[in-house]
C-alpha cells in the first residue's frame, strides 16, 4: 500500500461523520475524490457539521481577495453587486476597494457627474447600436488631472469597452487616447490594462498613436444611420485642417455621405456640452444644464479645440476607418 493510500485511509478512519450523512454543504465530495484520483492523490475529505455554513458574508473576504474577484467582473456586474445589499454596497464602494478597482472618484460624483455618466453611456449605447467597426475613444475631462482623473478616465474607457464589446457585434477595434494621461499611469490601471487583452474579438489599441491621423476620414451615412456620431481629432489635426468633426443629428438622416474638412462646413452642426467640462470657457447659452449652439458659435469658444469641445459628450467614432486607412 502506498503511503498516499495510507494517508487516505487514515483520514477516512478519522472521519466521524458517515459518508451518507455528511452535510449537504459539501455536496460534491465525489468530484473532489475523483479529482484526487485523477491526480493520484486519493484523499477523502469530509466536513464536520459544526463547521457548516449556510450563508457567506462578503465580510469574510479580505479586501485583496474581494478586489481580485471584482477584477474578473466587468464594470456592469461590479455595479450590480452594489445593489445586493447595503453591506455589499458599503464594502464595494469603500475608498480603498474603489481605488483597487481603479474606479475611485466614481461614486463620489455629484448629481452633475451622474448626469454626465448617463449622458456618456447614452452616447455609447447609441454608438453600439450602429454597425460600428472601429472606435476611437477620446480623452476625457481635463480638470484635476492626474490626481483624480486617471482612474476616472480608465473607468470610463473600461466600461465603454465593456458595453461596446457586448453590444456592438461588428466592433473590431477600440483605440484609446492617451490624452493628458501619462501612459505609465494608465498602464498600471488594472481594469484598463486588462481590458486591452480581454476581448477576444476586439482589438483594443494602445494610447496616443494613431496611424490614421493623416487620413481624411469618410463617414458613411449608411453606417452611422442612427446619427449622433462624432468623429474628431486632436489639436494637431485641427491645425492641419484635417478635421473630421460631425455630430450627426436625426436631421441628417437623409444624408448619405459626409466628408468634413472644417467644422464650420457643417452649417447645422449641433453640439452640446455639460457645463463643467468646459467650465467658464463656454460662452453660449445654457439650457437644461447643457450648452447648446450651432457651429456659428464655434468662434466663441476661444482656444477650445474641437477635441476639448466634444471630449466628454461623445465617443469619437471612426466608423469607416477601415476604408480610410
Amino acid at each position, binding site marked *: 500500500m502506498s*503511503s498516499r493510500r*495510507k494517508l487516505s485511509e*487514515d*483520514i477516512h478512519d478519522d472521519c466521524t461523520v458517515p459518508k451518507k450523512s455528511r452535510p449537504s*454543504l*459539501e*455536496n*460534491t465530495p465525489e468530484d*473532489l475524490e475523483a*479529482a484526487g484520483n*485523477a*491526480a493520484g*492523490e486519493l*484523499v477523502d*475529505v469530509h466536513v464536520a457539521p459544526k*463547521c*457548516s*455554513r449556510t*450563508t*457567506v*458574508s462578503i465580510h*469574510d*473576504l*479580505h479586501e*485583496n*481577495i474581494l478586489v481580485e*474577484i471584482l*477584477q*474578473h*467582473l466587468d*464594470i*456592469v456586474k461590479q455595479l*450590480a*453587486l*452594489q*445593489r*445586493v*445589499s*447595503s453591506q*455589499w*454596497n458599503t464594502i464595494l464602494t469603500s475608498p480603498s476597494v474603489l481605488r483597487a478597482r481603479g474606479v475611485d472618484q466614481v461614486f463620489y460624483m455629484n448629481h452633475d457627474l*451622474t448626469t454626465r*455618466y448617463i*449622458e*456618456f*453611456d*447614452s*452616447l455609447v449605447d447609441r454608438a453600439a447600436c450602429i454597425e460600428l467597426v472601429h472606435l476611437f475613444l477620446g480623452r476625457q475631462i481635463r480638470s484635476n488631472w492626474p490626481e483624480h482623473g486617471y482612474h476616472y478616465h480608465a473607468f470610463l474607457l473600461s*466600461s465603454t469597452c*465593456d*458595453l461596446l464589446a457586448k453590444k456592438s457585434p461588428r466592433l473590431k477595434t477600440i483605440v484609446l487616447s492617451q490624452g493628458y494621461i501619462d501612459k505609465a499611469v494608465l498602464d498600471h490601471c*488594472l481594469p484598463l490594462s*486588462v481590458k486591452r*487583452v*480581454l476581448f477576444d474579438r476586439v482589438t483594443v489599441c494602445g494610447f496616443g498613436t494613431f496611424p490614421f491621423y493623416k487620413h481624411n476620414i469618410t463617414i458613411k451615412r449608411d453606417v452611422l444611420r442612427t446619427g*449622433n456620431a462624432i468623429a474628431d481629432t486632436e489639436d494637431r489635426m485641427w491645425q492641419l485642417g484635417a478635421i473630421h468633426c460631425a455630430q450627426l*443629428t436625426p436631421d441628417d438622416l437623409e444624408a448619405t455621405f459626409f466628408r468634413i474638412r472644417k467644422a464650420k462646413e457643417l452649417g447645422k452642426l*449641433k453640439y*452640446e456640452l455639460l457645463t463643467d467640462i468646459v467650465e467658464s470657457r463656454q460662452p453660449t447659452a445654457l439650457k437644461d444644464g447643457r450648452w*447648446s449652439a450651432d457651429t456659428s458659435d464655434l468662434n466663441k469658444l476661444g482656444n477650445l479645440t474641437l477635441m476639448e469641445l466634444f471630449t466628454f459628450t461623445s465617443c469619437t467614432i471612426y466608423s469607416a476607418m477601415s476604408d480610410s486607412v
Partner: protein
Amino acid sequence: MSTAASSSTSETIAEPGLKIKVSTKEGEVFELDEKVAKMSQVIRGILEDLGEQNGGDDSVLPLTQVETRIFRKILVWLKYHAGHDKEEAPKAEEDEIIARFCEEIPEWDQKFLNVDQAVILEIMLAADYLDIKKLRGLCCKTVANILKTKTVEQIREMYGIENDFTPEEEEEIRKQTAWCEDEPPRQGSNH
C-alpha cells in the same frame, strides 16, 4: 517556530527528502514534502527565515488559521500541482495579468472547486493566509464566474442575503448605476 505538543492525527508520507510538519487550527499535524510545503509562500518564508537546517527536526509550523478539513483539501490541490505543474520562469507583469484574467480554469481545478461556494470561500481564505497565489486566484475566478451568471436577486438568494435597502436607497443606488445597465435611460434626441 512553535511546536504543537500534541496532535490528534499525525500522518507520515514515507518518501525520501525533507519533510515539513505543519499543524492546523485544531492541532492536527501533517507532514509534507518540502516541495509541497514550499508552494505556500508563508511556509517557504518561515523555512527560509529559520534556515533549512532546522527543517528536518521535530518542529511543527502552526497554521493557526486553517481548519483541518480545509487544509486537507488544500493538500490535495498542492500535491496535484506539485506533481503536475511545470517550473515556469517568472512572467512579466503584463503576461501575469493575461494569465490571471484570460486563461481558463483547468479541468482538474474546475473539478476540485466544484464544491459549495462556502467551501470555496474557505479554501480561498486559507490559500490567502498560506499565500498560495495560484489557488487563491483560481478560487477568485471560480467565484467570479459564478457571480457573472447571477442576477442581483439570485446572488441574494445564493448567499442568503436580505435586501436591506429602503426603497429610497434602492432607487438612489439604481440611479447611480443606471448608466451601465443593459437598458440605460434614454436621453433627449438632441444629443
